[in-house]
């Protein structure tokens, strides 16, 4: 009699990763720090440990001694689906790996497991399934036009055609948080640092696809990485500045893998660049803030890449700024909740985690919460609004621009522009209200088969702006 086939497979895992599932000692250290576990009312299903133990159990049922002797044990498809959904209830922040006594590289483990389940057919989650098509066809996840990549440019900003320094703007700053784009550009202009930008040639960094386990679909992130690297190389870039932590992480870790060798340029985050300029005495502060601020380490900049001190160095040098630390900071910070495709796929979870982080900031008594990732900022703004707190949320680069005496104004926002397109701390513009929605036309009564409109399946909905990381 033919033995039954295993219910799961082992594609997308390395031998070391399959070993990692067996290395979990069940100590539960990861559980103490997991932001999504906290936001999900401490549900055991969301524990990083529990996910590892469940997959280990599936592996044993499929490939263990008993399975070899008597055939694999069947795992019900609904159980695998439930596991998939739980796995996507994770921002891939990597806190679990940081505290794991066995040193399990959980970020890569979650990404590989997600990729496995996408191939299996149960992943990704909700709107995340739109990413491959959007990014493959439009080169950004926001359904925007390539020609609008530099739409935020104001006449005062000078961008060179060719330069050995490049600014990789990223989709979020380019289309939604344009205050970050103008602030970065104006700082570089003020410091007399000629720089170029790829503009229409810039493609999405691919982070959203990799984090959600969809990197293999048409090889889009690989193609995008190679395209961006070659385009930057062709324009003579020796140093590429990123003001988005997500893009920076992709460039530092994911692009070299896709490119197959070391990048032909140095990737540097804007906070590192500012710290360098500060050390060289080139930054002259012209204003004082007179506020107590706290700093949120973006996961992609901090834990994933290891940049912790440079942003703090810049903040501490600012006139009138008192930096207070949240209890959980640097390697042990709590995630903002937006990463790993959670903002797009599971917005209520993103909000729950964001509220946790904003409350961390509130505990310090800070008047402003500063980060250096547009995606963190967006989610923290949402968390702040939900909690109705009187606390500004802004970006380190925007704060720097303002205190250097530079305008942080963008082109007058169009009606219904994303609220984060302008600075929260130094708002001089107002976002005009969205035009009233047209009244819905009633369904003709002559269509008896039509029932009350069902809730649209998440996967079919169009993504709102600022949905990918």
């Amino acid at each position, binding site marked *: 009699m033919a033995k039954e086939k295993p219910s799961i497979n082992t594609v997308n895992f390395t*031998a070391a990763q399959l070993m990692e599932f067996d290395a979990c000692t069940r100590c539960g250290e990861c559980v103490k720090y997991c932001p999504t576990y906290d936001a999900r009312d401490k549900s055991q299903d969301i524990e990083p440990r529990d996910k590892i133990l469940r997959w280990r159990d599936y592996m044993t049922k499929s490939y263990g001694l008993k399975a070899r002797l008597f055939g694999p044990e069947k795992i019900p498809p609904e159980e695998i689906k439930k596991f998939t959904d739980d796995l996507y209830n994770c921002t891939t922040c990597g806190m679990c790996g940081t505290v794991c006594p066995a040193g399990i590289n959980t970020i890569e483990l979650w990404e590989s497991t997600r990729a496995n389940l996408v191939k299996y057919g149960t992943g990704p989650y909700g709107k995340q399934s739109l990413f491959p098509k959007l990014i493959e066809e439009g080169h950004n996840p926001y359904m925007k036009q390539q020609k609008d990549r530099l739409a935020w440019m104001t006449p005062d900003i000078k961008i060179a055609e060719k330069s050995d320094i490049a600014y990789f703007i990223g989709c979020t700053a380019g289309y939604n948080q344009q205050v970050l784009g103008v602030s970065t550009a104006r700082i570089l202009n003020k410091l007399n640092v000629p720089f170029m930008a790829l503009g229409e040639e810039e493609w999405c960094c691919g982070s959203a696809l990799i984090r959600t386990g969809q990197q293999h679909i048409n090889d889009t992130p690989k193609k995008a990485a190679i395209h961006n690297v070659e385009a930057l190389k062709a324009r003579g870039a020796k140093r590429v500045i990123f003001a988005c932590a997500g893009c920076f992480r992709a460039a530092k870790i994911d692009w070299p893998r896709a490119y197959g060798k070391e990048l032909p340029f140095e990737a540097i985050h804007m906070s590192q660049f500012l710290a360098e300029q500060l050390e060289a005495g080139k930054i002259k502060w012209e204003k004082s803030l007179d506020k107590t601020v706290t700093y949120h380490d973006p996961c992609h900049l901090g834990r994933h890449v290891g940049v912790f001190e440079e942003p703090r160095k810049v903040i501490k040098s600012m006139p009138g700024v008192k930096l207070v630390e949240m209890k959980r900071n640097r390697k042990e910070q709590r995630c903002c909740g937006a990463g790993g495709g959670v903002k797009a796929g599971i917005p209520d979870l993103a909000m729950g985690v964001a509220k946790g982080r904003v409350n961390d900031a509130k505990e310090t008594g800070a008047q402003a919460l500063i980060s250096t990732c547009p995606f963190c900022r967006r989610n923290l703004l949402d968390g702040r609004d939900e909690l109705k707190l009187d606390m500004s949320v802004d970006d380190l680069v925007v704060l720097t621009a303002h205190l250097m005496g530079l305008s942080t104004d963008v082109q007058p926002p169009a009606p219904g522009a994303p609220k984060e397109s302008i600075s929260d701390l130094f708002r001089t513009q107002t976002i005009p209200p969205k035009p009233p929605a047209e009244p819905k036309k009633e369904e003709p009564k002559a269509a008896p088969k039509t029932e009350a409109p069902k809730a649209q399946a998440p996967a079919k909905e169009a993504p709102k702006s600022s949905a990918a990381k």
Partner: protein
Amino acid sequence: MSTEGLTILGKTVFDTLFIDWRIMAITAIISIILFIVGMYIQLEKWGRGIPEGATKSYGAWGALKFIISKIFEKGIGHALEILILDVAFQRRTYRRRKLEWFMHILIFWGWIGLLILTIVAAAAEFAGPFLLNQDYTYFVGVWKSLELPNDIFGYMLVLGIVIAIARRLFSTGKDVQARNADIDWILIFGLLIVVITGFYAQILRGDVTRELIEAYPPTFFNNITVMFHEVFTLLFCVAYVPFSKYFHMITAPLTILVNHGGE
């Protein structure tokens, strides 16, 4: 001066365990075979991985090669540093969980210490007659000198197990709330059986200086508790490892090494 013992190739080997060596030999062989088979099954399972971009799996030996190459990716010096700080002294656990670190160190080093001393005693047993041309007094001397460290490692193990039991009885921490955490009791009680019967065997063997085997009471040889201790220890601490939670003694250090300390 003469004593009885096991005769191998014309030499008398003083029988450390004072039990039928054939039982021990068979149990040891079975345990080692089961351990190797278990390890192979696990390696074969890991070797089924097909990373992104690859067209086929590694296989068991491919997995072993991959893991070894990852360990030494950053050089031998780096691997040694991780081995000492993160495996031998469990730095990552120390940073966050002092009590658990203490418990782990006691069990880990107690276990390793007893294993090393057992190997030393067995080596002395054979080295005396075969290499050094010494009679049984050589072995007795070595045996006596190992008593104190044997006691120390044994008590370390006992203390570690007591802490492990106490934590599971009185702690409400996350670590004791895992799914299927009850299985830990099998491991803890298994280890407790090893230690208790081990001390009993140690007490019985405390009087090994008598020269003639006839001088020992008949119950000294093939004592059922001692025999149970030896057989159970081999099966539980060797054969069972690849099939139990104890497997983390192998996988956790390997994972730390593969991930270069997890940093």
